[in-house]
């Protein structure tokens, strides 16, 4: 018993000494590895090419939503947005499980969305999708209301040109990621319709939507979803207190319109 305890103490001391050396080694290794990194020196010593482990379950109904604050649901007190209401509706009508990926980023403009859809992971998710929903362009055009306040037709023209180029690229990119899915491009409404120059701004938005729809029409299985008319008459009933984003009612209107187009 006594000898046992004594040797136990010696064993523990020895183990501790070994551990001390191991940790010291780890420390030296860590310092070396993190203080002397040469820029651009990417070593790959363990990359065991991982297979994509995504389960492509045919029974699922997959929706991927990309775009701006409308996709995100900004302005809706419940935080659902049109994607949320749409999902609710789909879940109620479908017996398949519905999986929704909301990749919307508030404030996103068309060039940022283009960059986003080019990333590997978004591409990967798009590939799995059955439906792809896009809201884009609002920030390009309105720039928080600035563009229409100044109202310079020449400036708007150049913005629109750039936007249409981006939109075309986005749609091509999305299509190349997923040949089968139906793409819905949700159009713009005019939040400023009741302001003084409502007529002029509506003119701009209509033309913008028309060109967007034209661009969409050139792509296979790509549907332009107009929302202009939804907000045309009672715009303030459907807008959030910032007079820009829709409120819960407004989002529900958009969701209903998209839902009507979905088939499964």
């Amino acid at each position, binding site marked *: 018993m006594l000898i046992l305890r004594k040797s136990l103490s*010696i064993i523990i001391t020895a183990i501790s000494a070994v551990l001390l050396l191991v940790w010291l080694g780890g420390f030296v290794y860590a310092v070396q590895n993190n203080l002397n990194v040469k820029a651009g020196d990417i*070593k790959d010593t*363990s990359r065991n090419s991982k297979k994509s482990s995504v389960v492509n379950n045919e029974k699922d109904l997959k929706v991927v939503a990309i775009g701006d604050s409308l996709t995100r649901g900004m302005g809706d007190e419940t935080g659902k947005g049109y994607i949320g209401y749409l999902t609710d509706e789909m879940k109620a009508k479908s017996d398949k499980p519905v999986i929704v990926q909301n990749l919307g980023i508030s404030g996103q403009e068309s060039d940022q969305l283009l960059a986003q859809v080019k990333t590997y992971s978004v591409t990967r998710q798009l590939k799995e999708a059955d439906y792809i929903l896009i809201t884009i362009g609002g920030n390009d055009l309105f720039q928080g209301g600035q563009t229409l306040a100044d109202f310079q037709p020449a400036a708007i023209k150049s913005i629109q040109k750039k936007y249409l180029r981006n939109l075309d690229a986005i749609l091509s990119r999305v299509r190349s990621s997923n040949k089968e899915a139906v793409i819905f491009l949700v159009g713009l409404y005019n939040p400023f319709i009741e302001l003084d120059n409502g007529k002029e701004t509506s003119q701009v938005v209509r033309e913008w939507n028309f060109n967007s729809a034209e661009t969409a029409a050139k792509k296979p299985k790509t549907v332009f979803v107009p929302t202009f008319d939804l907000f045309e008459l009672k715009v303030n009933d459907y807008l959030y207190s910032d007079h820009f984003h829709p409120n819960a009612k407004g989002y529900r209107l958009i969701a209903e319109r998209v839902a009507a187009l979905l088939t499964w």
Partner: protein
Amino acid sequence: MNNLIQNEMLKLLARKRLIVVGGILAILVVLFTYAQYQTVQTQLKKLGTTDWRTTLQQQIIDTQNRLANSRIPDDFKKELEVRVKQQQYYLDNDINPAEPGAPSFTKEFMENSIDLLLPLMIMVIASDLVSSEFSMGSIKLLLTRPVKRWKILLSKYITLLLAISLIIAMMGLVSYLISGVVFGYKGWTAPAFSGFRITEAGFDSSGASIIPQWQFILMDFGVVWFAAVVVGTLSFMVSVLIRSTAAGMGIILALLIAGAILSNMVSSWTSAKYFFMLNMRLTDYLNGSPPPIEGMTLSFSLLVLTVWWLLALVISFTVFTKKDIY
């Protein structure tokens, strides 16, 4: 010297403090494992999928949305930006930053306990090592032997280093074994990134390389060990200076907690970076998390900690060899 270390080890083991530390760790790990498990379950429910890429993508989107909010403070914004870039990097390279499995849990556990939990455990041992001899009165027997005082103190210090190494191993082992029950024991060879740097310009992954998880964990343990040694040495010094173990523990505890609070609020008080407490989170440099104060780097923190360590060591030995024992 070997005999002296054996003596100290004998006393340390006889007092069963290590067992107490092990017990506390086991209980905490069970708790954290459960918490982690719940988090995973919640995520599962919310997303309807267990795919981490989806989760990570969602996190990126969430962070980007938070970034769009103009009301968040600048330094936090920077932190978020760094996080997004990093997560994006993981995503693009198909690397799961939180590869579920006991190794990942252990790694995360170590990273999260480096600045408070582990130092507390170390403190329990270190602050008692010398002051208990004073409070028991046995110091009078210990110092009236034909052995020079510095040798006696050195044997105690080496014992402390051994105990720290043992505690860290215990921590790793306990968290690996317990969390493995829930998350599985695999994942040692999963790819991990090292060599992230936070520079003036932001997140820099140009020097990053992919290494197997176990190598990363070894590095994590290495820096955790170093931080623990520094805290242990400081507690050791307090133990030499102050007779009462409880008072000594109180002082170190207060410093550690102050550090935890400060690191959350001092981003504008830059001189605070010279406190040892704010330099404890060495693992953050390894995994690319931003430091509490801008401009802090791994080499800076190592330097600060080394200076504190040396100072504590010099003070401990000078005082102990000169001290009159009443």
